[in-house]
């Protein structure tokens, strides 16, 4: 496969200008608004993708066109106008600011509370970096260590070019193009994302976190992630960032696919803190995510997530337990405040024998927010001795918020053992006074109580992430009890 150069591209675009029905200046960073097949082709071209990838996108697009946006979730929002969005925007290379002094002080205050280093603050808020950035050299060191073990860790765009055989083999195998409305859209127009492959028997020697976080700033609207753990390998992957992400893009529709081959283990941790909108709920991000993992024999996938952001969240990290003795886990903390709405949960599909799944969901609602847990445990006929344990706890703060639990169970094998526990509690004034009396102010008291409530899930996060996530919970709930 020959590689396009900038010039080839320019030529090609010029000649195809007609065909696309619009004029695209290759120097321009943003496509015109709207979505049609030409736009999809143009995205693929711009990203210098091989033909099979272009075709795959087109196929997805055609499927998407015939689909309707789902409305079964317990969320209310104005449906996005998909023709009013621009589907390609090159990563902004130019720094937005010259120094931190120009950045919104409120944002900086939050960074400070989270204990984010100055360098990282600059990176995250788009400030020009002087000198050689510390983090870049860290990233290089990481890359070297990983390469020595044969671990591939790069952007999905890079992977499509450098490792097409792997991408081609696995993309869309866990979340098919037509899986759902948002997944189809993502498959057609995904901007970028990450790719990770861990070879047979290799234990990834580090949390894929710091590196990722550095590359996190400015990821697109339609992120695509593909993680493959080959037989007997292990990887722990951290996605997201505790720093508040103020994105102008209102709609986010990511797809994450995890593949754990025989005896492999993937831990996937997410901290999501998209802009939730102002206290009236205006301007927040809509986050519609499809995350799914496939477990082969004796494999294990754990999803751990801390969700504090977005105006509307629609997200169900799931596990398909295909192989015998495979294990799926889902640990989640979802915080909603003000007017946020979250409909999140998981799906555990038991296909293989002796498959086991655990679901621990902690929903915290404050303000006027609505927090729903939706879980499906499915045991197929072949899945002898499948076991599931689910626990869904809700914590309410104040009288205007809501917590809802929708557990669905479908068991087609009599040997299945499924347990479900649910609790709802409220932060009591007595608890707060007790803390106050010991010298702990109300805000700190709430943080303490919330952290206690979330402990089982926080404990599942890698150490440094857990500390940040704890602070994030604190900040998300600030001022929620008057």
């Amino acid at each position, binding site marked *: 496969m020959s590689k396009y150069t900038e010039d080839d591209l320019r030529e090609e675009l010029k000649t195809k200008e007609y065909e696309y029905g619009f004029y695209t200046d290759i120097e321009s960073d943003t496509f015109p608004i709207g979505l049609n097949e030409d736009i999809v082709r143009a995205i693929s071209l711009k990203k210098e993708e091989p033909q099979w990838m272009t075709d795959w996108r087109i196929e997805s697009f055609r499927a998407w066109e015939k689909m309707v946006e789902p409305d079964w979730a317990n969320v209310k929002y104005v449906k996005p106008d998909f023709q009013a969005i621009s589907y390609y925007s090159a990563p902004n290379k130019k720094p937005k600011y010259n120094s931190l002094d120009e950045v919104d002080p409120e944002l900086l205050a939050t960074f400070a509370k989270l204990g984010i280093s100055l360098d990282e603050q600059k990176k995250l808020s788009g400030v020009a970096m002087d000198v050689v950035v510390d983090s870049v050299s860290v990233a290089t060191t990481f890359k070297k260590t990983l390469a020595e073990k044969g671990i591939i860790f790069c952007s999905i765009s890079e992977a499509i070019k450098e490792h097409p055989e792997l991408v081609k083999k696995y993309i869309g195998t866990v979340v098919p193009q037509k899986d759902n409305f948002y997944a189809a859209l993502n498959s057609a127009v995904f901007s970028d994302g990450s790719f990770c492959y861990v070879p047979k028997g290799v234990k990834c020697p580090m949390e894929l976190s710091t590196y990722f976080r550095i590359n996190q700033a400015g990821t697109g609207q339609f992120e695509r992630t593909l993680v493959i753990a080959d037989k007997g390998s292990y990887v722990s992957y951290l996605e997201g960032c505790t720093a508040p992400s103020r994105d102008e893009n209102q709609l986010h529709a990511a797809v994450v696919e995890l593949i754990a081959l025989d005896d492999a283990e993937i831990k996937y941790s997410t901290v999501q803190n998209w802009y939730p909108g102002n206290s009236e709920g205006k301007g927040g991000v809509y986050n519609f995510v499809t995350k799914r993992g496939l477990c082969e024999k004796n494999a294990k996938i754990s999803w751990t997530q801390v969700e504090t952001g977005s105006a509307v969240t629609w997200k169900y990290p799931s596990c398909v337990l295909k192989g015998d003795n495979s294990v799926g886990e889902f640990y989640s903390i979802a915080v909603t405040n003000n007017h946020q709405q979250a409909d999140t949960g998981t799906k555990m599909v038991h296909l293989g024998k002796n498959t086991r799944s655990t679901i621990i969901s902690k929903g915290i609602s404050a303000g006027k927010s609505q927090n729903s847990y939706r879980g499906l445990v499915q045991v197929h006929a072949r899945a002898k001795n499948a076991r599931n344990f689910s626990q869904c706890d809700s914590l309410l703060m104040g009288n205007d918020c809501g917590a809802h639990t929708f557990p669905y169970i479908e068991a087609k094998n009599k040997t299945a053992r499924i347990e479900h526990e649910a609790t709802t509690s409220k932060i009591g004034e007595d608890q707060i006074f*007790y803390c*106050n*009396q*010991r010298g702990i*102010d109300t805000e700190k008291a709430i943080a303490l109580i919330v952290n*206690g*409530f979330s402990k089982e899930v926080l404990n599942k996060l890698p150490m440094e992430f857990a500390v940040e996530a704890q602070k994030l919970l604190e900040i998300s709930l600030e001022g929620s009890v008057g």
Partner: protein
Amino acid sequence: MLKINNLHASVEDKSILKGINLEINPGEVHAIMGPNGSGKSTLASVIAGKEDYEVTKGTILFEGEDIEELAAEDRAHKGIFLSFQYPVEIPGVSVTNFIKTAINESRKAKGLEDMPAKDMLKLIREKAELLEMDRKFLSRSLNEGFSGGEKKRNEIFQMAMLEPKLAILDETDSGLDIDALRIVANGVNKLKSKDNAVLVITHYQRLLDYIVPDFVHVLHNGKIVKSGTKELAHELEAKGYDWIKEEVNA
């Protein structure tokens, strides 16, 4: 140290405290007794700064300062401690983590750094030993599933950690078995000095055999209707409250 003057307080427009006068000096132990519902816990909560209670008249001075406007946590930082009659549960927060947070918040208020982990650990061990508490206990969720007696012992453990100037013990003895009562009372006595003071709320003379009060007050219907020495407690134990109620009504 504490000077309460003609204190009236109400909750939800229901008047509960109806003119309390009480002065506690450093080094003193005071006991408050009185029938159920007479307002003992209310008085404790008002001193500690619980917001549900509205002070409608009178003043509370702590070390000469009117604390009416101070939030509960600020009063705690000044050295007021309340051992609750009914300690609340905080699931998922360990005894250790809770007390660590409490100590460091108080230090922060005084402009001090967090206590180094090593010192904290040492202090916790020392005080746990003083109250003969099992180590395992310290990692359990605060008050969750604690027996009545364990809750009370844990309150005094926190008191020992925080070393308050004024400790109010609201029925700390109820729920304690005989051995535990002795241990807890010994703990309190060890913490006593000429610079701090204790206000014990109790129904029973038993506790006062260990923590010997300088003064005993009887609270009835929101007022202190009788004060005396420790002999008064014996008298109450023997005769109940009726004679006092009669005296008041006479």
